[in-house]
């Protein structure tokens, strides 16, 4: 088990009576990129919420570095190096770009490294340095996504979970953001990508999981999975 950085076993999660995730399992090794692919409503975002502690799973176990982290509150997980980038470039709109980034280094551990981390984020996204004092809510969608990513990187994470990072963005912007993700992965960051875009997810990730109606219906090496096969599973054909 300790081969895995994170391992989710038989996760169940509900909203009231609606069971959004029904016994989903996946794992990720250090340094990997995996993608969790599925349509809108397949339960992938809920699965991520259950992993990062925003939601308590109604069943199943999550292990991180071999330790059972099921139901541990999010702020503790962030301290352990597990962080999520929420979907749609959710920033703190009324706060400045700089303050948004600073919020990323909220944990005591990250505070100490704040200045280096900030330099690093500005290197990855130079535009954020230019707009540092602007309200984050006034930025374009792509720039807000950069703030959201940069903010997560400020926490000195080991594992980042990107939720629907390409949603609503222009293709060129998506390309840049994907290139950045690949770069930070090469530097040692482990990445979970939650995506609707089959082609792009298969291309960037080492392994993929396809979700349908709350269940993992297909998994495998991203290079061995054919787009056709994934699409069939994706739509439940």
């Amino acid at each position: 088990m300790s081969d895995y950085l994170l391992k989710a076993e038989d996760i169940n999660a509900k909203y009231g009576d609606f069971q959004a995730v029904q016994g989903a399992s996946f794992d990720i090794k250090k340094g990997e990129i995996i993608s969790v692919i599925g349509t809108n409503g397949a339960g992938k975002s809920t699965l991520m919420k259950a992993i990062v502690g925003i939601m308590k799973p109604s069943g199943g176990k999550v292990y991180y570095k071999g330790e059972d982290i099921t139901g541990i509150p999010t702020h503790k997980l962030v301290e352990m190096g597990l962080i999520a980038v929420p979907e749609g470039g959710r920033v703190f709109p009324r706060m400045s770009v700089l303050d948004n980034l600073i919020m990323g280094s909220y944990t005591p551990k990250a505070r100490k490294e704040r200045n280096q981390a900030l330099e690093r984020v500005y290197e990855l996204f130079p535009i954020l340095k230019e707009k540092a004092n602007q309200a984050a809510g006034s930025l374009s969608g792509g720039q807000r996504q950069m703030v959201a990513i940069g903010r997560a990187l400020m926490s000195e994470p080991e594992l980042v979970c990107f939720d629907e990072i390409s949603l609503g963005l222009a293709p060129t912007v998506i390309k840049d953001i994907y290139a950045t993700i690949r770069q930070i992965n090469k530097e040692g960051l482990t990445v979970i990508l939650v995506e609707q875009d089959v082609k792009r997810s298969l291309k960037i990730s080492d392994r993929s999981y396809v979700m349908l109606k709350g269940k993992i219906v297909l998994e495998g090496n991203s290079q061995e999975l054919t787009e056709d096969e994934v699409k069939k599973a994706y739509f439940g054909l």
Partner: protein
Amino acid sequence: MDALIQSLIQGVLLGGLYAAIGIGMSLIFGIVKLTNLAHGDFLVLGSYISLVVTSTLGISPFLSLIIVVPVMFCIGFVVQNTMLNKVLSKGAEPTLMITFGLSIVIQNLLLYFFTADARNLHSSITLKSITISDGIRIPVIYLISCVVGVVVILILGAYFKKTYQGKAIMAAADDLEVAQLMGVNIKNIYGLAMGISIATAAIAGVMVGMIYNFYPTSGSSYLVIAFAVVVIGGMGSTYGTLVAGLLFGLAQVLGAHFFGAQAQLLTGYIVLLVMLIFRPQGLFSK
């Protein structure tokens, strides 16, 4: 001319005090999105606790703040965490009910322990004033309370701008779930905000307690002032609250100057009404 200058000075000084009365309510409005109908009663509770501290220990009301502020902070923290947090997700009505209930409970507790008699916080400087010229005098207690109000707001402004904790509160106000994702323990963040809110109310309570008589039921009139300041300034805007306090204070005192003392409150509320018509989001709301 002297009378007008005197009124202007009085208005500005009163405004600083009004800002102090309103800042806590604005904070909670803006951050927790909660209308605290007991804000005025917490303020008066602060006056009474100061009364107990000053009379038992024989210290000045100013010194009593050392005890009153932490006590009131804790009360705010506990009230938020034990009562209000539980119903926050259920919309605005349950919190209105709870704070309204708290208002009644505080009033009646005060009535039970202190009777309905008028009280005030004695201080040797209550009656002192600085004479500038024959017609212009600055009452020291108004000057102090204005300074205290401004200082409280500046400290709060710096707290939200410079400290992690302050930023975390602002972040939670913007997007609670994302604040949680960044590692903020949101369970206590609202308690902290309410503690700060009630602590500022208590500071205002000690100031007004030195200027005016207070009764167990005085809270409602301070709630109205706080409400006016919050509406004029824009909910959750720290410096907006300061400007709003000054505007509201000036409007009242100038109203009294030009139209007679009976117009003081009315002119203040006419300004409020005009604001509600033309800029209901407040002057400084983003």
